């Protein structure tokens, strides 16, 4: 355990700091932004698509190709759909006196 922590101490610091940042960012968000923020966060975790691209890019077997291809489509859906939907939701904040 100690060993594990020590060999991964950097990553642990990173993860803890990221959690802090994530929490801090949200803490004082006005309730009107709950839904758009959720939607925006949703698009961001679409970063999982990078995993899909890697699989797809390295695919050799049919199995990996098909799954990879599907993953890429799904990931893209998440990313593109997510950002576009968020943008639409936020359209109403456009007007500002």
């Amino acid at each position, binding site marked *: 355990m100690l060993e594990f922590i020590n060999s991964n101490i950097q990553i642990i610091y990173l993860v803890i700091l990221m959690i802090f940042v*994530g929490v801090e960012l949200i803490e004082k968000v006005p*309730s009107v932004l709950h839904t758009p923020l959720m939607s*925006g966060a949703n698009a961001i975790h679409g*970063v999982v698509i990078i995993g899909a691209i890697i699989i797809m890019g390295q695919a050799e077997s049919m199995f990996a*190709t098909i799954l990879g291809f599907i993953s890429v489509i*799904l990931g*893209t859906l998440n990313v593109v759909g997510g950002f576009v939907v968020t943008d639409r939701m936020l359209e109403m904040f456009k007007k500002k006196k």
Partner: protein
Amino acid sequence: MNTEILQLIYLVGSVSFMIGLKMLSKPDTARKGNLVAAFGMTVAIFGTIFLYEGIKVSNYGWIFGGLIIGSILGTLSAKKVKMTQMPEMVSLFNGMGGACAMLISAVEFTHLTHNYAIGDLPKGHLLIILLGLIIGSISFVGSLVAWGKLSGRVGDKTLKIQQIVNIGLLLLILGIACYTIMVGPPETTTYFYVIWGLSVLYGILFVMPIGGADMPVVISLLNSFTGVAAAMGGFLYDNKVMLVGGILVGSAGTLLTLVMCKAMNRSLTNVLIGNFGGGGNGESSTSESGGHVREINPGDTAILLKYANKVVIVPGYGLAVAQAQHVCHELEELLEKEGVGVKYAIHPVAGRMPGHMNVLLAESNVSYDKLVEMENINPEFATTDVVLVVGANDVVNPAAKTDPNSPIYGMPILDVENAKNIIVMKRSMKAGYAGIENELFYQPKTSMLFGDAKGTLTKLVAEIKAL
């Protein structure tokens, strides 16, 4: 060299995510924040495609094919969806992300079994893969169920002992996973698929019993799940941008879920397991008359008001009962300062005595110019963005015009239903002086903001100031 540049690109992507998320949490910058995050994502994706070591150029076709298909489908569905169906859409997209994480785990598992002998699989890797699989699957299936519920395709179904089944199932999944990782039995592959199947099942059972009204909270929770699943990918590939994106969303999403619960004045546990029999909450907003009532919270009302050009306040007896005239005036002044035109529509019989509203509003120093008589304000409703009905009922009841059997038939009323949005502030669905139901409350343009008028107006003022 490529790898080095890619690292830098990932750094840019990570920082974009942080900045984007930060900007998303403020109304003024939210829209730009979304773009910043999208920019970071684009950079990360194309960086990976072109610079990642091991991507075969022969697979570019597949990659771009997938990207193009996904982009087209995603853009189209996101553009077509109606404003009111946004949450469903978010849920669906979230499910896609979960599915993606799940599939990655599946593929990486085959890679793992390919590269190592069963029983010798590196525990760390396996742990990460299994976690990605479990969380991804739950998120995927759960999101689909949530989407189905919101769009009315799936109803609330609950087994009597649902919660116990659920907890048991979760323990079972985790047990098998632990066993597989620790012991590394020869049937590892089988166990992998068993775990997958059970996770899918759990995803269904987890979301099924939760009431429709609580879906946004559940979606937010599943959203943070997907974030964690993405982070697993980050560990797997030692990929910082996946890690940052995933963990940010994981932690931010979790907190957001809690914040949303708090805004609804409920605890997360209460949302997740308190709702046996499901929809208890959702149903209460369906009236005896069968109509469906749309509720709104002070936050959303605040945004509607602040970004409106013209607001008309319709005070009624409830304003007097709540003694909310002072804070009502404060709201009016605040909106005027924001550049919103505000008027009061005074119905001749609002309240319980002639001139009741006049007395109240004069007490709180509302300028006489702002009080408009019924005949003069009625033509104006068509150009009004938001009508705020504060504790009035009979004086805005369309039955007076439409229902000859109604005791108020023939009484002239305020034609608030011509406005673009109608927000009705009252404590319950109870009737007013005349004792009759009000169809206005069930109209699609109407939203109910329940609560004592004084308290709700105070919250509204605070929300608008916070914007």
